[in-house]
């Protein structure tokens, strides 16, 4: 399926990524009370081996919160931050210091990701008119390959190629550095046809 996807359909998915990422950016901006820049989201059609490299290589250490999506559209959404920015980020977003417990950290980080990804998902659900429910969030800090491959399991049963909606938010922090946050959506292959059908994108012959 993914090997035959048309430009028109890819454009539609790009638009979906655009709407979702823009809503996540607004949430982040409210949370930090600061301007947030959004890179124009890209849509990637890549092999499994490239999919686990999209945030800097399979061994790259990342902080990630995973939210699983069920409903008419199913898939996995990853909120990703550089691990060495976690203390600064949580301090600015929630006024917390890293000295508090790991459990507290995970719980706050999960909640922040939940707010951002939640706005993405509900915007997407509103736009498509398709039901989407998000799972509770779960945090892991580890090698990118080991984390992102979790989002590929369902897709891998269908094909060696996957489609990733790749959004990036960026905002300066108090120290003058940038927080770069990736929001990646790995939709399960069964979801695409539902999206295209609902939004009336057909190919000749379909």
């Amino acid at each position, binding site marked *: 399926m993914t090997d035959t996807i048309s430009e028109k359909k890819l454009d539609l998915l790009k638009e979906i990524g655009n709407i979702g990422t823009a809503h996540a950016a607004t949430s982040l901006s409210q949370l930090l009370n600061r301007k947030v820049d959004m890179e124009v989201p890209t849509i990637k059609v890549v092999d499994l081996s490239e999919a686990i490299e999209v945030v800097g290589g*399979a061994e790259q250490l990342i902080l990630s919160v995973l939210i699983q999506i069920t409903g008419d559209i199913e898939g996995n959404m990853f909120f990703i931050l550089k691990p060495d920015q976690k203390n600064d980020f949580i301090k600015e977003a929630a006024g917390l210091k890293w000295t508090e417990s790991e459990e507290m950290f995970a719980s706050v980080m999960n909640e922040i990701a939940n707010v951002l990804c939640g706005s993405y998902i509900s915007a997407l659900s509103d736009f498509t008119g398709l039901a989407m429910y998000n799972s509770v969030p779960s945090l892991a800090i580890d090698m*990118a390959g080991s984390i992102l*491959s979790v989002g590929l399991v369902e897709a891998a049963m269908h094909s060696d190629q996957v489609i990733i909606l790749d959004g990036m938010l960026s905002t300066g922090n108090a120290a003058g550095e940038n927080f770069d946050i990736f929001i990646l959506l790995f939709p399960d292959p069964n979801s695409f046809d539902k999206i295209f059908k609902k939004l009336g994108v057909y190919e000749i012959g379909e």
Partner: protein
Amino acid sequence: MENKDEVIRVGIADAKISRSKILKTYGLGSCVGAAIYDLNNELAGMAHIMLPDSAASREKQLNRNKYADTALTDLVKALEMEGGNKTNFKAKIAGGSQMFQFSNTNPVIRIGQRNVEAVIEILSNLNIPIISKDVGGNYGRTMEFNPVNGMMIISTAGKGKIQL
């Protein structure tokens, strides 16, 4: 320091055979890395397995290296083609983590454990003994295997390196 020329990289849903050179696969999470080797011939193969069973595949064109059953069977055949002696074959395996803790029963979340169970069962059916394994847990692993001395090295983000 590792010489890049001396390392054969095995990608996700991929398998490679090596004579003497080190085989390496990066960032195993729920996936399982399996090395099958014949020390007498300094010959080894490694697969980076994503899913337990090819029967569940909905692929138009099956990537046999993706599934425990087909990947391991093919690895044995390829090693025999290269002059390996099946009676010498031994295996070392790593991976099969559950990276995220969810309370729900989504089978995708338990995929690591299912991959490990499948690899153990298939190696047993092939009469290949598992000499060592480093599986399960909630963290990622990079696995390398040296066909010359049969050693497996596992590196993790938080726990450093171990040799098995």
